[in-house]
Structure formats: C-alpha cells, structure tokens
C-alpha cells in the first residue's frame, strides 16, 4: 500500500507547486495585466457593427479613429479633438476637411496606414448591407477621397459645426489592403471580424467564445508604449458572478455598478476602489412602431400615438428608479443624458399620471370587457412583449416593476428576458413590441438624430420612429453655429418628439466602476470608460501573480 502511495504523493506535490510557480516571470513597470469581468461576450470585433459596450471597448483597443475626443468631450469646431491616426487636419473651405495621416501609424501586419484605408472605411460604414448603426451620423459626408498616400479629404453636403467630429470620431479605420477584396456580404462573417488586424495599442491574442478575450500590448505602438501588458475580458454568466470574481480578486475591474448593494459589496473588498463618473447614457422602453412579425406593416398597437402617451404616463419612473438604483440615478425625461450640453431640468417631459393614463385608455376604447384584468378592444387584449437583457439585473428588476405598474392600469406586458447577444441580434431587425434599451450616448446631441430620426431607420433607430418635423428641427439644430439657437432648436425638436412618445424615457443611472487598487493613472472618460485604459499602469512594487505570469 505504501508503495502505491509514494508516487501519488509525488504527483500531488508537483501539482501544488506547479500551480504556484510559473514559467517565465515578467518584470518592469509595463507588466500589468487587467482582467475585466463582464456579463456578455463580444458579438463581433468588426467595428461598423459593434454595438454593445462589451464590443466597442474591446474594438477601441484594437482599432483607432482619425482623431479622438479629449477629456473635455468637446465636439464642436475644429479644435476639440486630439490626434490619433491623423496627425493633423486643415480646413479647405466650409465643406472640405483634409486630414494628414501620422506617418508612424502602421497596421499590425506591418503595412502602413494609407488614405485608401480611410476612403474604404467610409464606403463600408455607409454600405446598406453592413447596416452600421452609426451610419446615420455620416449622412452629411458626401465623399471621402484619397489625395495621396497620407492625405485624405472629406466633403460635406451641409455646413455645420460638428463636421470634424463626424468625420473623425464615428469610424474606426479598417485595413483596406486586407478587406478590399472581400464581398460585403461575406465581410460580416469573415475571419477578420474574429481575428482583427488593427492599428491600436493592443492586438488580439486569443478569443475563446463564451470564455474570454485576451489582448496583448503592441510595445511599439506609435503613440506611446501601452501601460498594461495584457487586457483580458472574462465572460461570466451574469452580473452576480462577475462581481464575485472581482470581489475575490480573481478579476480586476467591473463596470456598470449602479446599485447601492453592488457598491457596498465592492467596498467590502479591501483591494477595490470605486470610481464614479458622469453617466453618458439613458434607459428607455422603446416602442416598435412596425409589426414584430412583418416589419412592412405598422404595429397593431403602437402606431397609436395616444396609446403610447398613455403608457408613458402609466410608468412611475421615480419609484422604479429608486427601487433599482437608490440614489444613483436621475430621471431621463427625453433621450438626453446629463453628459450632453443641452441637458437641463427644463427638458420636455411626459409626467407620471396614472389617472390620466387610465382616462386616455378608456377614451381609446380599451376596456376590460372579459374581467381578466387586461384591457381589450374588439376582442384583442392590450398585451405585448417587453424584451430586456436578462444578464442585466438592474434592467431585469426594473422590467418586473414596470410590468406590475402597467398591470395596475390593465396593460399586460409579457416579459421576455433575452441573453444580451441574442438581444443584439434581434432588436436591430425591428422584430419586437417593446424593447428595454440602454443607450450610451456620444457626447453630442447630434447622436439623438441617429437614434430617433428618420435617417436612423435601419441603423440605430430600431423602433422606426419617424416625424419629418422633428427631423427638420434636428437638422437645423445641427447645422447652426449659434449655440443658443442650436439649443432652442433642440428643445423644439425634443418637445415634439417627447409628445409623440416613441419610447418611455426612464432614467440616467450614474456610472461607477470598481477597480483593483494596484492600478495607477486610472482615468475614465465618461463616453467610453475604457478609452484611456491603455495608459493605466501597475508599478512593479504592487504587482500580483497574474501581472508577473507569462512571457
């Protein structure tokens, strides 16, 4: 018996030590490894179709824009942005901008970044088959021309103050030399969408779907050496397990902490600190104005403006918000987050008023004639599906609460909790009744146009809301150079839009992320918290196992 046990003991010992020791240790200040715990996998790493924060944060590490926002988030004029792929830009006239590419910028396969790449990127973003959600923001660009190897010229159809922002910010530049020859329909599923070749500070090292995405730093990145050696997004089944990973130090960062309970849990772990930043988004219940089965027909219920208004009045945002977020949010009365310049307490709104909601419903002929608690009209019950991401505990809670509030006025909202990735696959096709969305806004009001204007249909305007007067007001607001006039036009547009109730606008939660204390130089940009993560660092003295691990 003893003879058998000895080799076993040896194996056990080796295994134990093997688990602690590691092959080659990393030393120096650029070793840091950050593990980000996240409830969903990236859907694709193809920049034009990336939507979820899970994808864009990763995509922005790999792909660069021509220029990026600076910390003050100014989008107006030609001076607010900081160079990325473009080292400088000059204005030729009111409708022409010329960019000069940084001659140090190269693709991760060694090829130089050229003006042709930029022109190609524009053609992909505006291709209707690609159906890029941001395409609406590019509709005032009429042409992109490569002048020479390193110079590219943008031509605009109208004169407006955010030309530079639109030209430089929305598109992540794609490698024309690799993608040019690929049929557009195949591009969406191409190998390059999973093994991207970019220009950014990080390159994809490994992506195991459903498990993790690991990025490694490009030490020769032309804008400076990235501070972290590895960035790993770990996919967890739900928020709770993501939080558990961070609390138990198996992961380093979790974003989206919005409820007092989460923050309390994070604070209970000594190694974590919470970083609070302004919210760049708002939650809303979007009505699908097209039929969920056949999008060529209008929606049987929600084509009715008064019904939408009635439902808006039936939802008690204040209570919902307090129940879910405690003090960590503000009411969003219109599709405007506190980050935008036009945000203010006097934004147009539909107030909570249950009695008035009931009155409106009665007036429309919705009565509970069969005594089952649900209003009906001509034999059709006032019933619809409410799709929400089941992986988000906050929206789940809110959905259940709102369902109950609607039930109290005789409206039957059937909850459909979907996994985030499948939600992203179905919602953009317009196949839904009501969608519980959360939109992280660009820091400019013009993004409202892409989500609620007619130009956004097929892109970011999932519900197909369309009102020519609102479109016109928004266009004028974007075109004017006078800030006061712009603001007033926006208010007029919003007033009209909110009265139409294309959605029930709910609230803007504050954003908090918890991050391990060993990271230094932690800066967070509200529009995209991960935008400056490549400059974070772990000093050698504070490194833990996973910083040292590996090559």
């Amino acid at each position, binding site marked *: 018996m003893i003879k058998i046990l000895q080799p076993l003991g040896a194996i056990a010992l080796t295994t134990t030590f093997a688990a602690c020791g590691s092959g*080659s240790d990393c030393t120096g200040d650029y070793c840091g490894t950050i593990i980000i715990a996240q409830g969903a996998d990236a859907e694709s790493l193809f920049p034009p179709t990336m939507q979820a924060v899970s994808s864009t944060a990763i995509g922005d590490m790999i792909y660069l824009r021509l220029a990026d926002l600076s910390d003050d988030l100014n989008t107006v004029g030609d001076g607010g942005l900081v160079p990325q792929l473009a080292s400088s830009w000059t204005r030729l006239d009111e409708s022409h901008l010329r960019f000069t590419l940084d001659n140090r910028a190269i693709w991760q396969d060694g090829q130089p970044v050229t003006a042709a790449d930029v022109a190609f990127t524009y053609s992909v973003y505006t291709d*209707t088959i690609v159906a890029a959600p941001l395409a609406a923001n590019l509709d005032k660009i009429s042409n992109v021309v490569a002048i020479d190897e390193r110079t590219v010229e943008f031509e605009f159809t109208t004169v407006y103050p955010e030309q530079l922002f639109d030209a430089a910010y929305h598109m992540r530049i794609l490698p024309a030399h690799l993608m040019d020859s690929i049929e557009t329909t195949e591009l969406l599923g191409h190998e390059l969408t999973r093994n991207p070749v970019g220009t950014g500070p990080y390159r994809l090292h490994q992506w195991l*779907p*459903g498990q993790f995405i690991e990025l490694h730093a490009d030490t020769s990145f032309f804008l400076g050496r990235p501070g972290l050696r590895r960035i790993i997004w770990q996919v967890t*089944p739900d928020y709770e397990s993501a939080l558990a990973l961070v609390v138990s130090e198996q992961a380093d960062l979790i974003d989206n902490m919005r409820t007092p309970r989460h923050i309390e849990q994070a604070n209970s772990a000594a190694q974590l600190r919470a970083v609070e930043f302004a919210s760049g988004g708002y939650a809303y219940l979007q009505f699908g104005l097209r039929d969920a089965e056949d999008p060529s027909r209008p929606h049987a219920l929600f084509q009715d403006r008064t019904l939408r208004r009635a439902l808006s009045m039936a939802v008690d945002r204040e209570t919902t918000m307090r129940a879910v977020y405690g003090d960590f949010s503000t009411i969003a009365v219109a599709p405007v987050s506190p980050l935008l310049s036009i945000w203010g307490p006097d934004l147009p709104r539909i107030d909570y008023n249950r009695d008035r909601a009931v009155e409106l419903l009665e007036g429309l002929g919705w009565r509970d004639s069969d005594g089952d608690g649900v209003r009906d009209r001509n034999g059709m019950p006032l019933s619809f599906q409410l799709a929400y991401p089941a992986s988000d505990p906050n929206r789940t809670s809110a959905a259940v609460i709102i369902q109950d509030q609607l039930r109290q006025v005789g409206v039957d909202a059937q909850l459909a909790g979907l996994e985030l*990735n499948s939600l992203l696959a179905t919602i953009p096709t*317009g196949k839904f009744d009501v969608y519980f969305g959360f939109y992280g806004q660009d820091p400019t009001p013009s993004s409202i146009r892409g989500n609620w204007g007619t130009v956004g249909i097929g892109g970011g305007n999932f519900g197909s809301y369309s009102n020519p007067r609102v479109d016109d007001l928004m266009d004028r607001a974007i075109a004017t150079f006078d800030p006061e006039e712009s603001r007033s036009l926006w208010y007029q547009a919003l007033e009209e839009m909110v009265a139409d109730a294309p959605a029930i606008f709910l609230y803007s939660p504050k954003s908090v992320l918890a991050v391990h204390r060993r990271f230094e130089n932690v800066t967070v940009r509200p529009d995209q918290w991960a935008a400056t993560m490549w400059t974070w660092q772990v000093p050698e003295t504070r490194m833990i196992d996973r910083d040292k*691990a590996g090559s």
Partner: protein
Amino acid sequence: MGRLIGRKLFQALVVMLLVTTSTFFLIHIAPGDPFMPDLSVSGVSAERTDQIRRNFGLDRPIYVQYGAYLKNVASGNLGLSFRSYRPVSEIIIERLPNTIVLTSLALIMDFAIGILIGTWQAWKRGSAGDRFLTVATLTLHSTPVFWFGFMLILAFSVSLRILPGSGVVTIGIYDSLTPLGQLWDRIKHLILPVSTLALIGAGSTARFQRAAMLDTLSQDFIKSARARGLSECTVIFRHALRNSLLPTITLLGLSLPVLLSGSVLVETVFSWPGIGALTVDSVQSRDYMVVTAIGLVSAVMVLAGNLVADILYSVADPRARRKP
C-alpha cells in the same frame, strides 16, 4: 458481431435521417421565416434581399431546400450561422471538445459511483446503510440538476472559496503554468460541473444497479458459487457484479440523452462553453442553422453512445455474441 454493428449502424442512420428531417421541417413550418436573416428593415433593397435569399437557397420550394440541406449535411457542410456568418461546423467544433470532456467525465463518475453504491446496497440489503442510501439516491435522482449546481457553487465557490464556480481555466495565469499546473487548473474547474452532473446521474444509476444486483444475487449460479466455497469477495465481484452490470450497460445507452439534457443546464450554470450553452445561446438568438446542427450532433453522440453500449454488452455477455 460485425453484423450486429452493421445492423445498429443502419438503424442509427435511419434515426439520424428522422432527426434531421423533423428538426428541418419543425423549423420551416414555424411561423415567420426563421431561416431568413431579416434585411427588409435595414434599408436593403428588395433586389438585394432576393439575391441573398437566392444565395441561401431560400427562394426554392421547401422539398428542394430539404434535398439540398440533406446533401450538404451528408457532405459535412452544416451551413452558415445567421448570427455570426461563420460556418456552423466551425462553431460546433470549437465547443464540442468542452462538452465531450464534461459529459464523458461525468458519465464515468456517474457509473463508477452509482455502481459502487448500488452494489454495496444490494450486498448489505436491509442494513441501516442501505436504507440511508436508498433515501439519498432517491433524493439525488429527484433534485433539479441546475439547482444542485447552484448549491455546490454556494458551498464550494462562494462560502469556502476552494473551487472555481465558472469557466474552464483560470484566466490570466493559465498560459504561464507548467503543463502539470495547467492540467491541475483544468481539473479544478471541472470538479464542480462534473460532480453536479455525475452525482445527479449516480442517484438513478445506483438505484438501477441495486435492483440489478439484487436480481443477480437471487439467481442459482450465485448459490452455486457459494456452495463451491468461493470467498464472499469472489462471489460478489467476480460473479454477481459482472452479471448485474449487463442491464446497467443498457442503462448507459439510455442515460446519454438525459446527460446531454443535463449538460444544457449545467453548462449554463457554470458558464461552461460547450454545446449545451451554445444551444441556449442559439435558440435565444434564433440562429436556427446552429440549432439544427446541434440537434444532429446530439443525435450522433447519443447513437454513438448506444453503439458503444451495444458493443460493451456483447463483450460482457457471451450469450449476446451469437445472436444475429
């Protein structure tokens, strides 16, 4: 034996054809057009939509599509995913090893534990231990597998913090471990999901084995073996156990679909990136090309398992070898 396998293979083929057919038509007769990615709202022109429909062969009559589908499947082409536009076979192959590792380890543990407990119970029939185990195995057999997984996570990952409750490897340090360390890391991640599946399964296996063993122990050749003065050990293990395993081998084939059903839930609970979790994902995002393929793959796995069980049976029982 060759004929037996041939006949079983033929039966398996028929069953697979039926499975493919039923999933294909089930999905095609469903309301809406589940196979069609919806392009009409994306501002795509009607001609373009038609062209894409043609590319996917969706404009032809359903029986033509069915024929084409069968031909593709037979040649190993499972189509493109409508969600990621990648080849379905690629997506499945990426996930399959995880499920195979999980389920086969669970199967082995399930039967090892089940047979051990069942045999012991039959041997000590009527003892306090037997009575306790009868209740225990029945309880396991009646416990929802995903709930049991949660209880294990609560106990070992949340409270005791000794075993990981999700994933396949420790992300961040796995790559830098020695090969042995990597193995240990993988084992640590396997313990909870495998135990969940295996213990729930072992509940029924033990019950079955106990009955089979009692049945065997009441047979004459056991009396004969005792009358020949063989030791109790020889009687139980050489004579009774071996014979009682025959019906349990049949159970092996039958328990595979149950195990795969369980793995759908267990993979979801432990975020184990296998076929089961993929099923839930694909069904949720209505990626029916992937769903159909998973149906086919599970059927192949189950039928292969049945074939293995049949072969094992004929190895274990000399009487079965002669039968056509």
